[in-house]
């Protein structure tokens, strides 16, 4: 149905080595991508060292609540007197964890499914593609909501739900790449020289399909982070005592007329993270000459 996937342009065939080297070339010549990389590095640093960086305990309450931004509380405090800056810094952990882990899982299984479908063809292709087509008919976020409806909320379930929701994107790209690459002469050469199916897929096909998969993975991380934030916001995410950006904003709803800072800063954190990933993804897309990727 009407969805787009990544399509490789004319310049797509590069060796894996030049792709690795060129990642830094992308960032160097593209100011947007540079901004993205720096911002993401800062957020990653926050996530790893959150307990040491955060000025206060993110769960420590105080009777004096909703203090406006001040020197002691740079971003103010929330309705239970908890320091907002510390909560946002700790929230980085869940966002990045969910963003990266879900895409890693979806990439692994999705690419495996797509490569198997494209390489073996026949009934393997038919069974896998029937499933993928079914999933393709629905937006990822809706699939994630459906799955949380069945599994229930909680961090692990959210990761499973979002990973499953992204499966079809990677499977489709991998399959279409394999279908093109399969016809290349070097694949026949490898086959004639006695390489096993697995070796051909792993050593000869995958390295040449990397570019569009990287671009899709980058975009998917941004959607996964938005998805997690939305699920948390709706009360379908992690447990309610964990500070996450979506949850802080959900709590903020009742107080926005009295304490604007609770409603603004966590959203700025989400936007900056997603914007950085989009900038980076855009730079990579231009560089690898992969056409516009779309997904929801």
């Amino acid at each position: 149905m009407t969805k787009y996937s990544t399509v490789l342009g004319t310049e797509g065939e590069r060796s894996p080595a030049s792709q690795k080297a060129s990642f830094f070339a992308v960032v160097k010549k593209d100011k947007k991508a540079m901004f993205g990389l720096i911002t993401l590095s800062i957020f990653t640093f926050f996530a790893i060292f959150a307990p040491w960086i955060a000025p206060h305990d993110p769960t420590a309450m105080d009777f004096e609540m909703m203090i406006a931004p001040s020197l002691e509380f740079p971003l103010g405090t929330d309705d239970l007197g908890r320091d907002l800056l510390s909560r946002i810094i700790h929230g980085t952990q869940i966002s990045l964890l969910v963003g990266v882990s879900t895409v890693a899982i979806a990439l692994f299984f999705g690419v495996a499914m797509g490569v198997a479908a494209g390489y073996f063809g026949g009934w393997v292709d038919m069974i896998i593609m029937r499933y993928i087509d079914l999933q393709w008919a629905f937006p990822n976020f809706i699939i994630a909501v459906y799955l949380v409806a069945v599994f229930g909320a909680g961090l692990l379930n959210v990761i499973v739900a979002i990973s499953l929701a992204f499966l079809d994107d990677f499977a489709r790209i991998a399959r279409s790449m394999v279908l093109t690459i399969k016809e290349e002469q070097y694949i026949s050469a490898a086959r004639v020289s006695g390489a096993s199916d697995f070796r051909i897929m792993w050593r000869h096909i995958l390295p040449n399909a990397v570019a569009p998969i990287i671009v899709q993975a980058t975009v998917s991380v941004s959607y996964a982070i938005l998805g997690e934030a939305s699920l948390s916001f709706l009360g379908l995410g992690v447990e309610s005592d964990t500070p996450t950006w979506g949850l802080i904003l959900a709590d903020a709803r009742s107080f926005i007329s009295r304490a604007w800072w609770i409603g603004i800063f966590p959203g700025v954190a989400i936007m900056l993270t997603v914007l950085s990933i989009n900038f980076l993804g855009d730079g990579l897309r231009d560089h690898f000459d992969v056409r516009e990727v779309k997904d929801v």
Partner: protein
Amino acid sequence: MSRFLVRRIFGALIVMFAVATLVFIMLRLVPGDPIAAMLYDAGDPDAVDEIRTKLGLDRPMYVQYGKWLWNAVQGDFGRSIYGSRVEVSRLLMEALPRTLSLASLSFIIAMVIAVPAGLIAATRRNSRADYAVTFVAFLGLSMPDFWLAILLIIAFAANLHWLPAIGYVPLAKGFWPWLSHLILPALAVGTAFSAIVARMIRSSMLEVLNTEYMRVARSKGLSERTLIMTHALPNALIPVVTVIGIAFALLMSGTVVVENVFAIKGLGRLLIQGILNRDYPVVQGTILVVSAIFVFSNLLVDVLYSIIDPRIRLQS
């Protein structure tokens, strides 16, 4: 055309059947007894048995499945577990116009912003206006819709008091009350879609402006305005039709979240409240209706697109 149409309708029906089956299977895998959730006192085994028999849950799985499917086809999804045990179909009928109002207004607002923005960006390439459009589009894509909703409430409802912060008023009670309650949510839902469309129009306009027929038109001495409005824009809009499928996806995902911020009792709020309350009949019914909206709007887009561009029909 008719063969294409039959094949696509058949495909859509199969997808709906698969979704209905999955919903049935999955909600029976859920841990916890739905009857225990319905009873105030689950300790009475006779009461549990009585309800089990009454609801037909003591019958074999395939009988339950057949019955459920048969009822669902007729629009009967059972009753809500909570409160006055309202029929799910009634809840859905009340929710549907709210969600459709929100989604269509979001679509209109998004297009009204996106088309001129994309046009200006393309015709004044690399100007300040172009950079501004590109940057704002990036922001629009990166902002979570529920946060944008909160920002809009802070600005236009809590501080300026121009528009109401929450709720929904049916169109029957007047155009302005209906519209005023929907403007902020529609902006929150439509922004991401608007960003996608603006970028798309910009790039497809740039492509069209470079074609041979544009050079011919220009060499005829047509004014720049005629050139853009009658030759370039219509052609640049063709690929945009394909994003209408994406529009449904984005707008429906958006309404699910944003309805919950503005307390609009549409399908999204019904779905989320159903999940939070473990009100399974409501969840099942809403999932089926939301899925049906997707599947058939995708079908509609494919058919429309095949009318605009007949080459589509010959593929696959």
